């Protein structure tokens, strides 16, 4: 009697185990099965889009007579005009000729790994070389060759090397000093949370300059303390 009862109880336990393992195993599989097709199609469309972009970047088929050509699209992707310079200007022209991302991608400009156009690289490789001033009498001022090491506040994040060179290529000193940054090393109590909210570097980066997506683009100088701690 005793033997049979323990036998029975172990059977019950085994059965319940089997049932609930089955339950536990099948539900995630079902969820996964329903999740994967969507993910696959998404991946496919994502894979298809860059391929298309690349295709246009390598061999841009810009037909000036075609009003649907990317160079005639406005910022919303609609045809901005009819492609005929003799006809009256389009709405986009009147709105100040908004630049259109698709035309930029067709121009094959260098991009970083996040798909963002790398304007600094464009300048360094002299793909564009804007004049210093519209006034021919203005004397050209060479960019300031001065890198500033800004220590990251956290112990584990690499320090920032701030290049004056690229910034003074585009801007004059008064744009940043002393309004945004006090011109003295260590006197600006910068923080990443503040920058994200649009203070300090965030006054431009994320708005008119490259966004904060690529941390390593600024946080590039390894921290010695952190490397020791590893």
């Amino acid at each position, binding site marked *: 009697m005793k033997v049979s*009862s323990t036998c*029975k109880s172990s059977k019950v336990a085994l059965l319940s*185990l089997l049932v*609930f*393992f089955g339950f*536990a195993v099948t539900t995630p599989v079902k969820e996964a099965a329903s999740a994967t097709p969507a993910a696959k199609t998404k991946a496919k469309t994502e894979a298809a889009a860059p391929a298309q972009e690349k295709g246009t970047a390598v061999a841009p088929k810009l037909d000036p007579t075609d009003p649907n050509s990317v160079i005639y699209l406005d910022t919303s992707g609609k045809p901005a005009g009819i492609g005929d310079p003799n006809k009256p200007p389009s709405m986009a022209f009147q709105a100040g000729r908004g630049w259109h991302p698709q035309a930029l991608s067709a121009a094959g400009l260098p991009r970083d790994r996040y798909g963002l156009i790398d304007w600094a690289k464009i300048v360094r490789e002299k793909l564009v070389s804007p004049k210093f001033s519209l006034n021919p009498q203005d004397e050209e001022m060479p960019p300031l060759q001065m890198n500033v090491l800004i220590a990251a*506040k956290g*112990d584990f*994040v690499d320090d920032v090397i701030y290049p004056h060179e690229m910034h003074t290529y585009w801007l004059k000193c008064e744009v940043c000093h002393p309004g945004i940054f006090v011109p003295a090393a260590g006197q600006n109590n910068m923080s990443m*949370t503040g920058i994200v909210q649009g203070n300090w570097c965030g006054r431009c980066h994320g708005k008119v300059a490259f966004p904060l997506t690529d941390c390593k683009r600024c946080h590039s100088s390894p921290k010695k303390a952190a490397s020791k701690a590893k």
Partner: protein
Amino acid sequence: MAKRYFIALFFVLAVPAVSFGVQAEIKLDDKIASMHKAGVGPVIFPHAKHEKVYKCNDCHPKIFSEKRTENNISMKFNMEGKYCGSANCHNSPKAFALFECARCHTGVPGAKK
């Protein structure tokens, strides 16, 4: 007799609980001193949110060890493409970017908690 049912009940309740790995939220605060220097609070990782989109073996054990103490997560590693910043994760166009401090860290202006 009652004992038998109790044992059965134990398996009914305990086995699914273990196999589902019910992990609603995990608090990550082993680098709290450094976090405070940077002006942010600990991270609350919403496991349930990630479970909805990914299978366990998408992240475990390749990206994150299942043992909490074995993951030396830091922003430096995230930036370098490890842990949260792995390919197709928060250092790629597929998920929100690493600079959005307030979406993971608590105690940041703009954070939910």
